[in-house]
């Protein structure tokens, strides 16, 4: 079945089973490197994508439910030459170890802060309570997110 998605500003049509989780469309059909398979259960955040302004778990989101939606992945935020301010904050804080979780961390934090620019530290913490970083780069990541929040306001 043909489904059209707008990914990182570009309309793309894919021919897939409509029940296919969005993650496989992004990573396999479209070859994007940002969204990653972590658990396939919506528990860890590695697969996050921003859909119409909200961070969703693409591993449990059937692609048919996001047809015609605006989808942004990590590589859609900024580029290596011109990173998005939140990506720059992570670079400045050297906030990563293996980097596998960064997609979910950055997109979840960005979507949340865009909706809740005045969120308290406790709110941000709550928003990130279903996101994992198994290298436990928490201190640096939370610092980077705070920096981004301060900068954007």
């Amino acid at each position, binding site marked *: 079945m043909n489904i059209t998605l707008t990914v990182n500003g570009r309309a793309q049509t894919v021919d897939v089973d409509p029940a*296919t989780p969005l993650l496989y469309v992004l*990573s396999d059909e479209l070859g994007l490197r940002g969204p990653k398979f972590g658990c396939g259960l919506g528990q860890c955040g590695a697969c996050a994508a921003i859909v119409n302004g909200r961070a969703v778990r693409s591993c449990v989101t059937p692609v048919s439910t996001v047809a015609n939606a605006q989808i942004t992945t990590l590589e859609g935020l900024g580029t290596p030459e011109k990173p998005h301010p939140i990506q720059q904050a992570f670079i400045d804080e050297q906030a990563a170890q293996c980097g596998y979780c960064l997609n979910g961390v950055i997109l979840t934090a960005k979507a949340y802060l865009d909706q809740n620019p005045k969120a308290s530290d406790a709110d941000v*913490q709550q928003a990130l309570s279903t996101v994992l970083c198994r290298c436990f780069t928490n201190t640096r990541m939370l610092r980077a997110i705070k920096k981004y929040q301060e900068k954007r306001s």
Partner: protein
Amino acid sequence: MKRRDFLKTSGALIVSFAAVDVAQPLRAAFAQGPFDTRNSGVDPKQLDNWIAVNADGTVTAYTGKCELGQGIMTAQMQLVAEELGVPLSRVKLVQCDTAVCPDQGTTSGSQSTPTNFNERNLAQAAATAREALMQLASQRLGAPSDRLTVAGGVVSVRGDAAKHVSYGELVGGRKFNLTVNAAAKRRTPDQWAILGKPAMRADMVAMATGTLEYVQNVRVPGMLHGRVVRPPSHGATVVSVDEASVRAMPGVVKVVTCKNFVGVVAEKPWQAIQAARALKVNWSGGETIPPHATFYDYLRKQPSRDAVVINSRDVEAKLTASQSTLKATYLYPYQMHGSMGTSCAVADVQGNTAIVWSSTQSAYPTRSGVAMVLGIPAENVHVIFTRGSGCYGINGADTVSYDAALLSHAVGKPVKVQLSRQDEMAWENYGFATVIDQRAGVDASGAIAAWDCESWSVSKGGRPGYNQPGNVVTGELVGFEPATITPRGAAEPTGELRNGSNAVPSYVVGCISGKCGGAGAVKSERVLTHTIRSPFYTGPLRSPARLQNTFAHECFMDEIAAHVKADPVEYRLKHLSEPRLVDVVKAVAKAANWQPRAFPNRGNAGRGIATVAYEGDNGYVAMIAEVSVDAATGRVHVKRIVVAQDCGPISNPDGMKNQIEGGALQGLSRALGEEVTWDDHKVTSIDWRTYHSLPLGFDVPVIESVLINRAGVEATGAGETAITLVAAAVGNAIFDATGARIRQVPFTPERVKTAIAGNPAKSQA
């Protein structure tokens, strides 16, 4: 045994093959050890196999130690840039590609820095290259070497700026044709301009912008997708596979069965997942697993392989003669690596040749393992290390490399396999469950007179090395035996103390036949270990056995200090002899502003200290944790963690801090929540609801690092130091806060409440 010693000797391991027909003709080819070039074709004695100066003046270095997230790629680039005198931006590092990189065994055991940053291997190759370049420049410029200086890859004559030549002009694109010179002079830490400074991670921008290629992103033309179907329980065997049950499903290419290995290949990943779910497999048998609830008691009763690590033979007498004695038992569960991304590999097997893209820590051993699993010569396998999710030891990277190879072999096309979360968690090689009994005697002065330690731990499988693919699940499923325990009594120790597993507490003298290698003062000492066959695969998990042992030693030391009403810091110092350990204990106490006071403090706020000489001599570290405990709920809130660390000369201070911070919090997650669980037949901790990791958003403690930068000694590892101490430091802090001693990891709210109920807090007089 230290892991580095193990690596040196692992080529001599006895090989046991189940599938002899496959392996027999190839056996000779697998009898190689690490750093053995018989089969690698990349001779580490040749400088050109480590360093190439390109025509444009950039430098390409080749290493057998690869980036797992710990920052070793950047640190190695700093090393090469420093030794050669070129900017960091002009260094490219090729990691763990068996076609071009020397065989450096496995990237593990906090050994990458000791291996490549001291007077050998990559560091020595870079120093050799610099000397060779200086010699060439000296001839070219007609000036003696001692008048030459290097900056930015350009050699110039001091006092004659017109005379200069670049590396690119000297050798650009050509080979050195030299052997690595063991006598080539290294740059010393006081000369360092690039090493020793915080360097930005070379991969940071790519990671943050989603452009870095992980193995999960590898795409090969014509690539199909595979999914494995693991048995319903350990030891279950295939009776039949009903291929017709998935034949009509869209995209299904093939159902693959090889002994007890079952998998499906499909055109798209989602199709493979659905087919694997739908495939009807008739399994039989399976082992009954000893009950989780009584597992620690079970361990004590099994036949075991024993080792006496240290024995002064007077412990019983000294205990009897002591003023008072203490004993306690510490329990540590199976824990898992639980990588963020499930393991993934891409294999392209054509006839009897294979290319495997893998995030394995062991490129060459995986090359041999894939060869054995497929029954082809190791020379025909090319392993290309490709970044994966952080592994913290042996996650599923090796086993999924075999999975991909088997499926690709069956269809003759490239196949990618990424494990499901459940397949990753239920079948990985867990960190060792351990029971540790401690006994100590105290003399009339309050000093420790004798220390006795007896432990029971588990083993099955492990790293496959070069010749035991059965050490991980896929290898066993296709018929290779895992390494297992042969029960054997212990012989008395000989030679000198090897404390690579930190089985011996820091506070004893560690004497064998008059030679003392311990870090402490207690003369009456005995350490006896038992290893039991594990029902699950086991393998190194960040600070393997060292963390379990240190939890027991450092908590027990605290118990003894409390027993004699001594301050835990002063009491440790009184029993330590190793100056580097003394220094880190003093440094952490100072940084945390530790002052002696009532101990335990009670009032639900407390602090705890722990220290260790990691692997006996591979990094010196001390930690103080400050906690508050909610006595009603049993919840532990860690407010602050202070770490002092001496790992010799520091390559990248920011990288080291990152490792300390990550290690401290990973250690906290393991101390507070992580435990593998099971029922009679299968593992039940199979996702993030059933295996409890701390999330990104929790009450993250403040972490402060004191880095002791010590020159004039060898560089040691720094990736496993901090994590080794967390359970002990937090356990000790809980005791200080509540007067209740918690001796079982993880410190769940239930267990903390139970411990408090057994030790009701007394109001302070």
